[in-house]
């Protein structure tokens, strides 16, 4: 086939895909009436509360490992004492939102895609229609809003736990004074560092929920179709989070 035509087709297909996902997201976000409060509450628990252990553990070990790395790396140019500040800034600006987002993507995007995909292949989505219920409003809107609201909260908790992980390593094995470590962490942290991390969290939450819902609703038939939808949701969410992180970091700090 003609390479120009091939490129053109790929570009058109990509543009059409982006447009379709954008419309899907807009419909999911703004079709609020009727608002299904019970479904929203259940998603707050599913996406937010139940992700807390995995996000917390990830943050704890990341903060601890970061402290060790900064300490050993900083020692090369006599800068070991920057550990508290770098751990705090690194966690809050970058590692908290990105790793938190990726962990939520692994846990939540897969579960949303599998649940909605299974509902599709077992005609439960058609059943919703026959019960006068719009699947977008009942399935997608609560998940999008719940993810967008809970992931920043998870990021905030992850930031604190990550800094505590660094503090634990700093005070227990690197010889830092506890009060001094915490004071140093606070001293170099600016409010925009925190706010930008939380904004990233909201964006990553939206990405996770959109990927889960999109691939679930467009799942193929049978177990294989649901399996493919689940895999695609996780891969797409992870790549989109990393790409969005790059874009948002550029926007926020350049």
């Amino acid at each position, binding site marked *: 086939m003609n390479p120009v035509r091939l490129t053109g087709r790929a570009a058109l297909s990509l543009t059409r895909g982006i447009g379709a996902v954008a419309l899907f997201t807009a419909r999911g976000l703004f079709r609020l009436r009727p608002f299904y409060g019970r479904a929203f509450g259940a998603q707050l628990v599913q996406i937010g509360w139940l992700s807390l252990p995995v996000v917390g553990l990830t943050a704890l070990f990341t903060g601890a490992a970061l402290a060790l790395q900064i300490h050993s790396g900083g020692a090369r140019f006599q800068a070991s004492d920057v550990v508290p500040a770098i751990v705090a800034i690194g966690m809050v600006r970058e590692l908290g939102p990105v790793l938190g987002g990726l962990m939520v993507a692994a846990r939540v995007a897969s579960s949303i895609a599998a649940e909605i995909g299974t509902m599709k292949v077992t*005609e439960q989505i058609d059943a919703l*229609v*026959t019960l*006068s219920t719009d699947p977008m409003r009942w399935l997608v809107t609560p998940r999008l809003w719940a993810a967008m609201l809970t992931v920043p909260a998870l990021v905030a908790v992850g930031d604190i736990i990550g800094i505590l992980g660094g503090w634990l390593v700093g005070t227990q094995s690197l010889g830092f004074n506890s009060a001094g470590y915490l004071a140093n962490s606070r001293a170099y942290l600016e409010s925009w560092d925190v706010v930008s991390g939380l904004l990233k969290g909201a964006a990553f939450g939206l990405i996770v929920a959109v990927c889960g819902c999109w691939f679930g609703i467009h799942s193929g038939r049978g177990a294989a179709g649901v399996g493919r939808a689940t895999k695609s949701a996780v891969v797409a969410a992870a790549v989109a989070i990393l790409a969005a992180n790059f874009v948002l970091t550029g926007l926020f700090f350049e």
Partner: protein
Amino acid sequence: MIRIEGLHKSFAGKPVLAGVDLAVGQGESLCVIGQSGTGKSVLLKCILGLTAPDAGQILWQGRPLDRATRPAFLDRFGMLFQGAALFDSVTVWQNVAFRLRQRMPDAQARAIAVEKLARVGLGPETADLMPAELSGGMAKRAGLARAIADDPAVIFFDEPTTGLDPIRARRINDLIRGIVTETGATAITITHDMDSVRAIGDRVALLQEGRIAWDGPVAQMHDAVPLAAFLGHASGRRDTNAT
């Protein structure tokens, strides 16, 4: 009550419905039969608004079903799906009372759900079970309870006996016949099962090559020439299943 006029639908250039004309009167029980791939499910999806027809229209009480009129139609509509299609994430009574809970307190909705479950032969102990804990026959009954929970004027039954053994299939057929007679609802059943047709239907329509090839009273179906081939196929398949 429901009239389908010249319905056409193609997928990838292949016609599935090629001018379906069909009417179902108030309180009538119509069975639509046809071999696999003849467009029975597509016809159903067109009526529900899940698939847009290429041409033709569906009228309910004399008005075309479109974006404006379909919500009112769906409010008076109940459906039993082939696999029951119960929502996995909520209990049986919450499934049955799904629509009721959107406009009344839970206690009231639950009481109605338990009453409907009793109507289909399921005791109150099933109300708090999850759908995954039900057998195939129980799930079908729970699906039936959900279909009738809001006293619909029109009920669709999609392959109601598929996957059930002959004894359970007969019970479901009897239940459906009883409910349709009791409520006076208009019933449309899509099925391969000629026992269902005999038990449930007043009228039968044969869908063949995208059109209604025969439409008439159930009592006359054995004399109908276009049905002979299908009846032979259906009984042949049943014999095969029995061996």
